[in-house]
């Protein structure tokens, strides 16, 4: 995708709408016909005036118009108040040059004037905006990778929906002034000269630049005087950033071993448009932990890269998906005359796993580099077998656990390193499947299957709390709330495994003679539906960004289910899991429904759909047994939850979203 920045610039007064045509900054499509159009509402003094009208967007190309978009909403930001002189305008004296080079200083000179056009002294003017080119929605996509330097080796990989906060190739200033953005104060003659430099830019692009003055003491927002808008062609000497010589593929770096800090040397090369090295450039990086899952691939191309990998089905999410960081050490002089730069990078989150990073030089982003941090765990052994309800303790006298409840006996396992010594501070994951699902990999109990073989057949990970507590000094990791949250009624064996372990790591299964037995609902019903939903599972149409209903309360009568909500749009299911480790970091802490990492939001047609609702109470809680009995004699369980404001974003006109309450469900 390619494209150039544009600001949709218009002026809205507080009470009425007046409008200046959008700047005619050209946006060109790439070879795929796509253009990314950054949007910002400029000079919008009062977003309420804008939002009171039904304003939408249309895109024109050669006189051919797109359909009209959904309504857009202006989201206003406040500006810190400072006392300002009664200036009304920043008149252009010397505009910025038509073309600037990244990291080279340029200037703009303005004259602050009052309503009579007279010079205005003491006016603070700040460069407030640059049009930006970025690849915002590359953020969420299914991604997976792994590391091995050997060939023909099966390895366990982490995978998941990787949420990149990295913005690609954005215009940014070299930080300056008290706010970090270039500014200056006018003198007695009203003149104000601002010196600035671009810190980063796309490989080619045009920046739109505006200078604003601060609000007054009585007005927090917005800025109360503006300059003209300037367009500056930005030339970036950097055109490509290589990591480990990889220009177009995911680049592996190297593995480290816990618990030592993971420190590595990363070879970077910075090139210009002719493929020549660029001297004197330093890099920055951002890094994420990749939520893991259990999968594998056969790595056989002999090259240390994984751009075309496709692991088998994932089994269980693992890891917190939190932002982590990497500390870089690099020469202050930056890259050498040939563009080479070797940096020392230390990963800041002290837990093995799969990490992904990008390196940024003058705003040009490298490919995604992967760090696979091996765990020292080489094997695990079960210390205490899981067990469901004791005989006679369940409703039917069976050894069953109703979905949503924890197993009566919580298992414990011991983690050992390659020398057989206990490993402290590590986690164990658990999944379960029927003997049928495990057939072929559990026949020989003397030789437990290796993980890749296990994953050939999908294992339904339907356990609630799947992560153990961290292992203690004796290497024992205990589960405290392990139990089924979904799945069909039946008996299962629990598989214990540890991600990021050595590829030869063996999965361990619970005792086949003592399976855990779970009970799901036979039927379920929903007492109340949200508005605009005619029946459970029926599609409904409402405006994007429009709340369906506030304080939606649904009561379920069911026999053994855990209430869950899902929004279904064509090819995706997005739902909130009761498990914090699968929250998208974007929504964390807000108890908002978001994407489950099992299900990427990145659709096949590249349209991201989000939705949100605040859980007030009761979501994903265990069922409460009632005294009611169905006609078939089954005990009725009830689960009630309340949500506040179901709404979604980023859909297109005509999209239909379906709200479903899931009862018995097998993933």
């Amino acid at each position: 995708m390619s494209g150039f920045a544009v600001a949709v610039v218009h002026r809205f007064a507080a009470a009425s709408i007046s409008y200046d045509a959008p700047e005619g900054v050209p946006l060109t499509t790439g070879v795929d016909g796509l253009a990314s159009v950054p949007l910002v509402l400029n000079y919008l003094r009062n977003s309420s005036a804008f939002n009171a009208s039904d304003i939408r967007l249309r895109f024109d190309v050669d006189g051919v118009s797109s359909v009209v978009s959904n309504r857009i909403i202006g989201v206003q930001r406040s500006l810190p108040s400072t006392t300002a002189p009664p200036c009304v305008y920043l008149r252009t004296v010397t505009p910025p040059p038509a073309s600037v080079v990244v990291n080279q200083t340029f200037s703009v000179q303005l004259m602050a004037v009052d309503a009579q056009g007279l010079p205005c002294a003491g006016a603070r003017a700040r460069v407030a905006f640059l049009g930006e080119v970025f690849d915002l929605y590359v953020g969420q996509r299914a991604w997976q990778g792994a590391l091995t330097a050997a060939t023909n080796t099966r390895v366990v990989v982490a995978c998941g929906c990787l949420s990149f906060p990295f913005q690609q190739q954005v215009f940014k200033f070299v930080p300056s002034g008290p706010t970090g953005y270039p500014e200056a104060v006018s003198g007695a003659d009203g003149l104000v000269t601002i010196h600035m430099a671009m810190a980063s830019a796309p490989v080619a692009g045009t920046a739109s630049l505006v200078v604003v003055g601060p609000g007054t003491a009585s007005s927090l927002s917005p800025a109360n005087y503006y300059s003209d808008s300037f367009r500056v062609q930005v030339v970036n000497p950097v055109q490509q950033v290589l990591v480990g010589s990889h220009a177009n593929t995911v680049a592996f770096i190297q593995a480290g071993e816990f618990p030592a800090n993971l420190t590595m040397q990363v070879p970077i090369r910075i090139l210009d448009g002719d493929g020549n090295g660029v001297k004197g450039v330093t890099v920055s990086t951002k890094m994420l932990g990749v939520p893991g899952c259990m999968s594998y691939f056969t790595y056989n191309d002999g090259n240390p890269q994984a751009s075309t990998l496709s692991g088998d089905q994932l089994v269980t999410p693992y890891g917190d998906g939190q932002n982590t960081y990497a500390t870089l050490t690099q020469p202050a002089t930056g890259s050498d005359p040939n563009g080479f730069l070797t940096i020392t990078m230390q990963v800041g989150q002290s837990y093995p796993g799969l990490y992904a990073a990008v390196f940024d030089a003058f705003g040009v982003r490298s490919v995604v580099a992967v760090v696979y941090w091996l765990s020292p765990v080489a094997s695990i052994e079960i210390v205490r077998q899981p067990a469901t309800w004791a005989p006679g303790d369940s409703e039917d006298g069976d050894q069953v656990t109703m979905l949503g409840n924890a197993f009566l006996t919580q298992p414990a396992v011991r983690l050992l390193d390659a020398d057989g010594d206990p490993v402290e501070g590590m986690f164990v994951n658990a999944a379960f499947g029927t003997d049928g699902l495990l057939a072929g990999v559990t026949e020989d109990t003397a030789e437990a299957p290796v993980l890749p073989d296990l994953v050939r057949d999908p294992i339904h990970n339907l356990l609630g709390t799947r992560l153990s507590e961290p292992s203690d000094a004796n290497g024992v990791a205990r589960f405290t709330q392990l139990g089924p949250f979904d799945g069909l009624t039946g008996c299962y064996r629990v598989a214990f495994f540890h991600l990021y372990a050595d590829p030869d790591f063996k999965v361990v299964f619970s005792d086949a003679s003592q399976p855990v037995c779970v009970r799901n609902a036979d039927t379920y019903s929903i007492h109340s539906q949200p508005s605009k939903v005619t029946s459970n599972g029926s599609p409904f149409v409402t405006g994007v960004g429009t709340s369906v209903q506030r304080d939606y309360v649904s009561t379920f009568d069911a026999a053994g289910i855990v209430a869950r909500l899902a929004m279904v749009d064509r090819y995706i299911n997005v739902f909130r899991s009761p498990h914090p480790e699968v929250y998208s970091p974007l929504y964390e802490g807000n108890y908002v429904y978001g994407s489950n990492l099992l299900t990427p939001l990145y659709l096949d047609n590249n349209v991201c759909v989000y939705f949100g609702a605040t859980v007030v109470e009761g979501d994903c809680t265990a069922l409460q047994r009632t005294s009611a009995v169905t006609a078939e004699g089954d005990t009725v369980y009830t689960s009630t939850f309340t949500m506040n404001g179901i709404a979604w974003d980023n859909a297109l006109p005509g999209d239909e979203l379906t709200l479903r309450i899931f009862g018995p469900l097998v993933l």
Partner: protein
Amino acid sequence: MKHLENAVSGTTDANGEVTMTDLQFSVAGTTSGSREFKIKYVCDGVYGPLSTVTVSTSVQEVQLRLVPVNVPVLTGSTALNSESASQVAASVRVLGANKAPLVGKFVKPVLVYSSGTAVNAQ
């Protein structure tokens, strides 16, 4: 800038005629909204009559791929200058005949009312 390419013909034949087989505009699209262009032919300093050429766009469809609902408002806030999650972008795909993507097309965003009427046309 639109200009003519291959604008020099070969030599005339025995009938004094010449056919320009690959005369074309350098870029697609209109110029300042105009689809009509005038072409004048000249040979040895002698001009022929003006001929009118109407340009038709190769664009068949402008698809909305993604249009954010919430659009940040510039008020001078530093938040807009930072790498903020408030930054949004629309994604548009331009297609030609047979749904083929078109490269190098200029995309212009227009604020409109629900009727499709441009806001600045009011």
